[in-house]
């Protein structure tokens, strides 16, 4: 199961991209309720959005983004059959990618 969900909706030449990434986004300041130990920081640093392998948007993130990050963008010039690819990398080097076709 990919950690990334992508929803695309085209209307009047604009593709609405919505994405939800399952990620803890730990700040490194929270303590484990059971053990009392500090949970190490784990947060997404970079998210990139590509259309047919060309980067159309990217973001650098800090710990100020909520758990399970949600993003929405509006893209001009998406053709039916075009592919939207979203990938992320976090501070621990973990990464994931997902792709979806514009209808």
């Amino acid at each position, binding site marked *: 199961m990919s950690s990334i969900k992508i929803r695309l909706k085209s209307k009047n030449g604009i593709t609405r991209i919505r994405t939800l990434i399952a990620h803890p986004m730990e*700040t490194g*300041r929270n303590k484990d309720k059971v053990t009392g130990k500090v949970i190490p920081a784990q947060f997404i640093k970079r998210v990139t959005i590509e259309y047919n392998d060309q980067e*159309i948007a990217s*973001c650098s*993130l800090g710990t*100020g983004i909520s758990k399970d990050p949600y993003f929405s*963008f509006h893209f001009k010039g998406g053709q039916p059959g075009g592919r939207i690819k979203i990938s992320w990398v976090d501070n621990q080097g973990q990464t994931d990618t997902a792709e979806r076709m514009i209808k």
Partner: protein
Amino acid sequence: MVSSRRNFLKTACSAFCLSIVAKFGLIFTRAAEAAWPEKAFHSNKLNDVLLNLFQQNKTTKTKRIKLKIPGIAQDGAVVPLTITSTLRQIDRIVIFVAQNPRPLIADFELSPNMEVFVRTRIRMADTGHVTVIARANGKLYSTQKQVSVAIGGC
């Protein structure tokens, strides 16, 4: 003699492969590190953040950037916000919350074929201002909104 040559070849080959894998790993993480502006994310002042990201700190207040965010946030852990603008040629959008332990929230880079529209959910530690800075045509524009936070979420 023959077996030692075999052995040598084996070890040499695996060492070579390992070094290649290690190099690729390094290059990959370095690329990610390079793209992530660490200094900006670790500074507490808007001034420093702007200098770090844009090499300039002069911002013009504008009403042409619209920041849609609830005036009262029940839960500081999840505050939804939407940024739109009628300004042209915006290629960067930065979200900054001064009262957070790490004030720089996010830095969005938009290519010309993106509409100026960003929606996400942020964390807020306390009541205060949310500042959005956008770069249009090389100049910085900013807008601000006060949000009351019931329970801090940082």
